[in-house]
């Protein structure tokens, strides 16, 4: 177990633009991190640089304070699980799980004990003697995971979208099992995913990436409540944050004439700056009774199971809000209540105060 420090790391493939822009990054010992972002944003590049499958064009990789930039993958003592299942076809499940330990010269009895533990954790005990060739994709990925988890002395555990090929109903269960395994070992874990739910439930800290850069880094709560810019706001949450232009009148920020944010929160913002309000769909509700609300017309409603996502038009803007299924709401015109302290202000696309 070790901390990971990426010292001014950057990487470009050939002469192309930087797949990973120069950045300085610390991963603390024993914590779980999720790299979240769309395809091609540099997540896997960062992971492969840490594991040594890729030598960065710039900067140094330090594991537990030691420079390992030029050290071979095997000597870095890192475990990595890939997106697609990789099994040794000619081996049994047991031999597959034992392989990393075997390569590192563990003795037989120690291997048997450790493999039994991991097999038990992943529910593979009954299949240990089976040939790995005949397993389903799900089961093969379980073995890949098992090979990642089986060494309990690794410097770090890297996972590159390991649950992508797993059946949805098994994902939840597996996520729990990985977390459980990791709680025992307390590895430094870097988990790459493009599934925000996975990132949010799994990690102590989430790094949102876009176009080779880390855009925001924080706890799941921080990312949800105060996205640093419009990109993170859009990316985190389902559906993403609503962004609407505010009218500035008498110092107040208004939406369609209704005051939402008091003048005190606009202090320090240039009077002629254009302010965009960021409102989570979770923080909008229908106004009750005589309550003052933002007038809106309902466009459509989408069924999301226990919740409805309602599309409403406010002036020329469109907002989405989440409503509990059992809440009755008027067809056509409605008034919206917005929790004012949950509204975030953005100037030039960046969060202010």
């Amino acid at each position, binding site marked *: 177990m070790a901390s990971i420090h990426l010292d001014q790391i950057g990487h470009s493939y050939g002469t192309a633009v930087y797949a990973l822009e120069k950045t300085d990054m610390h991963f603390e010992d024993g914590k779980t991190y999720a790299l979240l972002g769309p395809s091609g944003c540099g997540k896997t590049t960062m992971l492969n640089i840490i594991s040594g499958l890729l030598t960065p064009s710039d900067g140094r990789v330090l594991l537990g304070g030691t420079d390992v930039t030029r050290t071979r993958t095997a000597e870095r003592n890192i475990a990595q699980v890939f997106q697609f299942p*990789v099994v040794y076809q000619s081996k049994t499940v047991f031999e597959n799980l034992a392989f990393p330990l075997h*390569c590192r010269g563990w003795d037989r009895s120690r291997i048997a004990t450790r493999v039994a533990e991991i097999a038990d954790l992943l529910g593979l005990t009954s299949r240990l003697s089976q040939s790995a060739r*005949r397993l389903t994709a799900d089961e093969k990925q379980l073995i890949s995971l098992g090979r990642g988890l089986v060494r309990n002395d690794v410097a770090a555990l890297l996972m590159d979208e390991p649950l992508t090929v797993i059946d949805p109903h098994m994902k939840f269960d597996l996520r729990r099992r990985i977390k459980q395994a990791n709680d025992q070992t307390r590895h430094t874990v870097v988990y790459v995913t493009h599934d925000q739910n996975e990132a949010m439930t799994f990690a102590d800290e989430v790094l949102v990436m876009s176009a080779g850069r880390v855009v925001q880094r924080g706890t799941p709560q921080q990312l949800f409540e105060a996205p640093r810019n419009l990109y993170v706001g859009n990316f985190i949450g389902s559906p993403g944050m609503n962004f609407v232009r505010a009218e500035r009148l008498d110092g107040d920020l208004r939406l369609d004439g209704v005051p939402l944010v008091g003048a005190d929160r606009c202090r320090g913002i240039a009077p002629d700056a254009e302010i965009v309000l960021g409102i989570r769909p979770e923080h909008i509700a229908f106004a009750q009774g005589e309550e003052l609300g933002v007038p809106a017309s309902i466009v459509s409603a989408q069924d999301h199971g226990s919740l409805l996502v309602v599309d409403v038009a406010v002036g020329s803007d469109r907002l989405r809000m989440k409503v509990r299924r059992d809440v009755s709401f008027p067809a056509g015109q409605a008034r919206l209540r917005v929790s004012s302290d949950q509204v975030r202000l953005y100037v030039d696309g960046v969060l202010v105060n």
Partner: protein
Amino acid sequence: MGQTGLRFYKFSFLLPGFLVLLAIILFPLLFTIRVSLSGWDAIAPGLNWAGLTNYAHVFSDGRFWEAMLRLSAMAVGTVLVQYVLGFALALLVWRDILFRRIFRVLFLIPMMTTPVIMSVIWRTIFHESLGPANDVLGLIGLGPYPWLTSANFAMAAVMLVEIWQWTPFMFLLLLAGLLSLPREPFLAAAIDGAGPVRTFFNVTFPLLVPVSIGAVVIRLIEASKIMETVYVLTSGGPGTATETAGYYIYIKGLRDFEIGYAASLSITYLVIMIVLLTIIAKLLVRIFIGRSA
């Protein structure tokens, strides 16, 4: 159009292909079977009826069975060596190395040469008193060896030329196989801490088994037809020491003009080859891929 008319109409499209098949495969095969049942020879040419006498003769023809046995040893021996060498060469130029392209082309040259011409050159090389093979070996104090005049050496010489000429074919198929392999298993092996030897036996070789089986079976089929090398290099000699089934059939049919008998030898040879190679292919799959495949 009625049902029958439509059916005829559809089948008529198959006719050209069927006619070609008939002309180039079925007719020669059927004709050979018919000839094998005749006593056609230089004295009494023609398709008379001899029943199964030729086949009865085949089974007591020790020279033919010896040739078959020799052929099997030659084919299996050369193909195994070709496989090992071809694999080694493919591994050598698989990854990024200096002058990779030049090496890849160089390794293929023997396969592109004409077997008869190369056999003539090799015959010169192996010449006991004038050939460079003994000269070179003499420099390091070995030989001279009776390359083409002693039974064991002649066998070795024929096999050497075969290996030299057809290793490139193995190399080509295995290199293509290597180049088509996915990267992930190799990355995973690196992560798991496997060195080059472990990676080869646990990743590279198992992944290449299907290609390997294909290459070995194709080469076995080809190697069983070995003829030109024997003809030019040793003419089956000394004595019958390097005589293979194909060469013996050639002698019977085109030198002794026992056409009927040669035909029955050919059919016997064909049946044995089909049965043996099918069994070998199945066995290879069973051993290296397992029952499920």
